[in-house]
């Protein structure tokens, strides 16, 4: 049953050094506020899972929270590189970063497999790519009906999954609307789940009987954090801050400027 707590309390209760953590939200509803709270609480040695690390993981990696990254596309969308991610991979700064790299299809399937209680996901993927030569993250199974060989990837099963959503009702039922990404899968695949929302309402008022609603009894903690996805967006609440995504290129390119920005905008808040 979802408990309504402060963001500080939610992160303190559910995120511990060394945990496998996923802050998901596919190019929408990215839980920046939760990521910043993890940085403020000084978590270390985290294994971070996320299809698109985006700025939120660039910041967490740059602040030394992560030991390992599991991802499928590590760029600044429409802008270019994630410089803190690159600095960690290319130069081991501020700490070395182990990476486990997938395709989007495999990551999405691994989320669905985790939510489905299956140990692995099956896909017709990775054919002819060098990605299959990187360790044993991609294995294969043979179809017992056709003999076709298909790719297999292990299901995602984080210690805690963290997402941002538009709103929750008093029972903790959460509505996700628009680009729903893998929000539901992240909650259901994770041993524990934390959700930040724009607001709590008496009536969820889901627009459709088939709207994406995550029942409160599948969630451990909910924190009300208006603007909790900025500079990403919350459909129906505020738009994506595209200019900031562009400014981030210059801010993150330089180690000192990055540190200053984090001190001023994340640590010192």
């Amino acid at each position, binding site marked *: 049953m979802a408990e309504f707590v402060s963001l500080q309390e939610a992160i303190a209760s559910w995120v511990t050094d060394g945990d496998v953590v996923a802050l998901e939200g*596919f*190019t*929408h509803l990215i839980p920046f506020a939760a990521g910043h709270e993890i940085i403020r609480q000084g978590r270390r040695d985290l294994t971070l899972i996320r*299809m*698109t690390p985006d700025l939120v993981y660039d910041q967490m990696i740059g602040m030394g929270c992560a030991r390992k990254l599991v*991802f*499928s*596309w*590590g*760029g600044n*969308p*429409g*802008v270019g*590189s*994630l410089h803190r*991610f*690159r600095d960690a*991979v*290319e130069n081991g700064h501020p700490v070395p970063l182990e990476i486990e*790299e*997938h*395709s*989007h*299809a495999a990551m*999405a*399937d691994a*989320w*669905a497999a985790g939510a489905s209680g299956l140990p692995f996901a099956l*896909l*017709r*993927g*990775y*054919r*002819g*790519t*060098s*990605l299959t030569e*990187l360790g044993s993250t991609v294995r294969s199974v043979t179809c017992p009906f056709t003999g076709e060989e298909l790719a297999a990837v292990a299901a995602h099963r984080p210690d805690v999954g963290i997402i941002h959503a538009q709103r929750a009702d008093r029972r903790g039922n959460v509505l996700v609307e*628009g*680009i*729903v*990404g*893998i929000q*539901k*899968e992240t909650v259901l695949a994770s041993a524990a789940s934390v959700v930040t929302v724009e607001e709590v309402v008496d009536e969820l008022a889901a627009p459709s009987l088939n709207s*994406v609603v995550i029942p409160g009894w599948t969630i451990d903690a909910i924190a009300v954090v208006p603007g909790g996805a900025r500079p990403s*967006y919350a*459909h129906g609440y505020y*738009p*994506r801050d*595209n*200019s900031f*995504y*562009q400014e981030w290129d210059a801010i993150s390119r330089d180690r000192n400027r990055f540190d200053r920005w984090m001190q001023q905008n994340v640590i010192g808040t």
Partner: protein
Amino acid sequence: MSEWTAPEMMVVAAARALTNDDVCFVGIGTPSEACNLARLTHAPHLTLIYESGTIGARPDVLPLSIGDGDLSETAVTTVSVPEMFRYWLQGGRITIGFLGAAQMDRFGNINTTVIGDYDRPSVRLPGGGGAPEIATSCGEVFITASHSPRALVEKVDFITSLGFGRDGRERERLGITTKGPTLVVTDLCTMRPEQGTNELIVENLHPGVSRSDVIDATGWKVRFADQVGETPPPTVEELEVLRDLKARTEAAHGGAS
């Protein structure tokens, strides 16, 4: 001095290859520009699918990310990301996958992962994203690249997305039934795989571009079709629509291109 730029010619040439019946899996950048230009000119019913789950998106401005809200609001429907990759891409519903290439070889193999050694890369690129499965699950693949020896290379450091493999035969060997790269559009020319070898050869030169321009800008010993044509220049309408689209985009994104 022509009245259009080379990148504009590239986008226009790519857009012309799309039809009303196509279902296009769209990457950000030039592919997205080309797909939306086609939709706003000769192919109003072209179906655009972005990997964020938006099916039939009709954005008013070019998205900066593949997940901008405009895509969902203008789409026929927005599905979850697992459904997008399972039912729509792997399900074989996409006719054309449209990819940009940071580094590509003569067989259309694309590298968007690393420059240099994987474990000690000189440049760490973003990685595969949707591309590895787009390259093999879509009916065919169109590729855009800015034509330079650093982009079109003799050998890619890493095959992120399969073209025809190291020797042009890999799709056959793996029993992949989709066509793979059938068209490459650069800012200098268009290329298609040669019958038999699957090596990309120059088919059309853009107006004002010479063979030696292409040879100098290509990292492998590039070959030309028996009959090399000239790409028709952008029409007034194509240029107007494209420039309006980019102006609207710039205004909307506060300086984005």
